[in-house]
């Protein structure tokens, strides 16, 4: 099956800093999503982005499908951005998302 790798595994930022999280995947995808898992364990949908670029407030994402990677940009980070960021991808027709191991982000004051 598809392999999904994320980097870095851990990231500590001061409030206001910018960051880039990376997701590499081993096969062509027809679904790629970014999630934020908050400290209560909830999975918050950030982007559905199998290709192209999207922006939502301070967050944006770019997927370069031909090179099999996706990037999540967080600008002007806030303490509420803390948590684990997962990317997940699917290659087939059953929407069986394969999750990466996540990037744990801690934003400090």
């Amino acid at each position, binding site marked *: 099956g598809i392999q999904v790798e994320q980097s870095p595994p851990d990231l500590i930022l001061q409030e206001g800093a910018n960051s880039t999280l990376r997701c590499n995947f081993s096969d062509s995808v*027809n*679904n790629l*999503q970014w*999630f934020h898992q908050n400290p*209560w*364990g*909830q*999975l918050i*949908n950030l982007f*559905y982005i*199998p290709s192209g670029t999207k922006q939502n407030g301070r967050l944006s994402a770019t997927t370069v499908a031909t090179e099999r990677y996706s990037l999540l940009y967080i600008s002007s980070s806030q303490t509420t951005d803390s948590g684990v960021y*997962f990317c*997940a991808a*699917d290659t*087939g*027709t*059953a*929407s*069986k*998302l*394969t*999750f*990466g*191991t*996540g990037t744990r982000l801690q934003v400090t004051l």
Partner: protein
Amino acid sequence: EPEVTQTPSHQVTQMGQEVILRCVPISNHLYFYWYRQILGQKVEFLVSFYNNEISEKSEIFDDQFSVERPDGSNFTLKIRSTKLEDSAMYFCASSGQISGNTIYFGEGSWLTVV
């Protein structure tokens, strides 16, 4: 924004007992899923469900597990004879299409087997 809702949010059960986790998917969605996340690990696919039958299941989803859509709104995951290693967060999800569409996740049901 429509959301997937799950109950209970947290359940503690004794080893060997049966557990039913409930989900109400987004109302116009047709495809339903269960995923599992053991503490500190990544989220893993369990099963997908469409048109009242299982579309795909992982190797984790063995005879101990079953899913059902008992009425027009609920989607349930039953775990029989629970084991300690079944302790995990269970996420229900739904989507409007089988492919090329956002999959929306519920807030999760945290199961603790003691």
